[in-house]
């Protein structure tokens, strides 16, 4: 199983699409490793720079509705994985992106809008998120402040994370 939790990168916009996560011009790469430097390169978001120091070493992304819409490219989860980001938390996901995350053994966590709002209060103060996968709960913290949330994932998605991905799961089963 992958490790989950750590420093947070906030992407404060809805409908971030997979072209913005990893542009089509890099789809000619046939190794995941080659994607690494191009994460979020075309993202249209005021003041956001994926290469800025406060976005370095992030392990968790917190964002808004319909994250990962557009192209089915699994290069989107892969570019996160290559940058050690194994968790995305949003108020909703596009279907294919969400499935791709779990298929890679990564976590796509949906929280209600109100909880996402609470997470965004930590946006400018440097936060980390710790995840208790067994208890379906997560805690965001910064200095002395912290907030805890519980989330739900399906039995299938949990099994994929535990198996390390869908290829392993399907191969053992079908």
């Amino acid at each position, binding site marked *: 199983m992958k490790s989950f939790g750590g420093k947070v990168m906030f992407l404060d916009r809805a409908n971030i699409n997979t072209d913005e996560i990893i542009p089509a011009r890099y789809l000619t790469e046939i190794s995941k490793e080659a994607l690494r430097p191009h994460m979020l390169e075309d993202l249209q978001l005021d003041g956001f720079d994926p290469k800025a120091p406060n976005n370095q070493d992030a392990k968790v992304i917190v964002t808004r509705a319909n994250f990962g819409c557009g192209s089915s490219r699994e290069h989107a989860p892969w570019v996160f994985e290559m940058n050690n980001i194994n968790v995305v938390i949003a108020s909703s996901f596009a279907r294919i992106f969400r499935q791709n995350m779990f298929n*890679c053994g990564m976590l796509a966590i949906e929280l209600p809008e109100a909880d996402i709002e609470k997470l965004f209060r930590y946006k400018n103060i440097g936060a980390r998120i710790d995840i208790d996968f067994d208890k379906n709960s997560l805690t965001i913290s910064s200095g002395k402040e912290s907030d805890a949330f519980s989330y739900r994932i*399906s039995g299938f998605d949990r099994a994929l994370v535990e198996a390390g991905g869908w290829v392993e799961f399907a191969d053992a089963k079908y």
Partner: protein
Amino acid sequence: MAMTLAEKIFKSHLRDEPFPGTKALAIDVVLCHEITTPIAINDLAARGKDRVFDPEKIKAVIDHVTPAKDSKTAQQGKILRDWAKRQNIRDFFDIGRNGVCHAIFPEKGFIRPGYTVIMGDSHTCTHGAFGAFAAGVGTTDLEVGILKGVCAFREPKTIRINISGAMPEGVYAKDVILKIIKELTVNGATDCVMEFHGSVVKGMSMESRMTLCNMAIEAGGTSGVCMPDEVTVDYLWPFISSDYKDKKAGLEDFKKWWSDEGCEYVKVIEINVSGMEPQVTYGYKPDEVKNISEIEGAPVDQVYIGSCTNGRLEDLRAAAQYLKGRQIAPGVRGIVSPATPKIFREADEEGLIKIFMDAGFCVTNPTCGACLGMSNGVLAPGEVCASTTNRNFNGRMGKGGMVHLMSPAVAAVTALEGKIADPRKFRREGI
């Protein structure tokens, strides 16, 4: 119990329900192209599982960048080509025979009512036009599909969209789907199948239905579907004539997939097309749609007619009737890409290619090319393209470029004017 088309397909293809709410389906056709498949092929090989579940049920094409533009794309093509050969995949379409995946696979008769179809491509929803459950997936799902012929889904809910009224002149399937996306918004159909009904859909050709279903994903939809009817039977007849005594028997068989009276819809939407204007997108999301009268006159640098949305013969005809005997505006670059070799040949035989060339269009080979900004018409920063494709995301056709989505008719008259124009103001020529 009354069931929707999607529920019937799920029931008939169910292999297993590994967890409540998750259904592993047997897959009838796994479609592949050279962008998302090579990594799956390499990964399978690395795991010592370089196998396919059934070479007859796998279809592959090189379409996104063809002919190869550099050594990386050449390598992607080679991986797919070598694999197809190694695995005895007979339905593999390489250069000279290749076309845009969602145009060429239906054209070959590979998609049938009641089928389950997956592909590592979000616009796989197009194939729902035949009454199939067709869904885009990522590379891992594709990999499992190739290896096991299985894919897992949450059972989708269905949104019913009734399209009624009389299609006004200058208004096409593209305008209708843009209007629907505007109404649903970009995630209004997430985890849902969009079922298209009504007199307008019944009157549409398979090409138009494919245009409609192609953009279901732009509202977040898993698949777009139309009930398979006489039009579907006619289209598929060359491929199914030995399976049925006559077309009537074919239709009777197809009807078993129709959504039942009284089945459950999460939402029902009514769209009346009477009096509707042509529709054009303006922002960077496909639900940012305006009536043409609100955006007419906006300048463009390039006009692109092609793609899995609108690169079929009827699309080329729709554009050519406005272009015949006219010239595109100076300073505008016109590019047309017939979606398959068959379409190209027929367009040539009908004289459409000549009309495009006389008007000043560049005619490219069948390929995705400019649609995703990889070749054959990439935009420079700051440039604007009027396009018959399906995505207007920021940078989609080239970093810093902007895209307005529209029908082939609007694209054609926009090329004539050099700015977004209304086809209803132009005389159509017989072609």
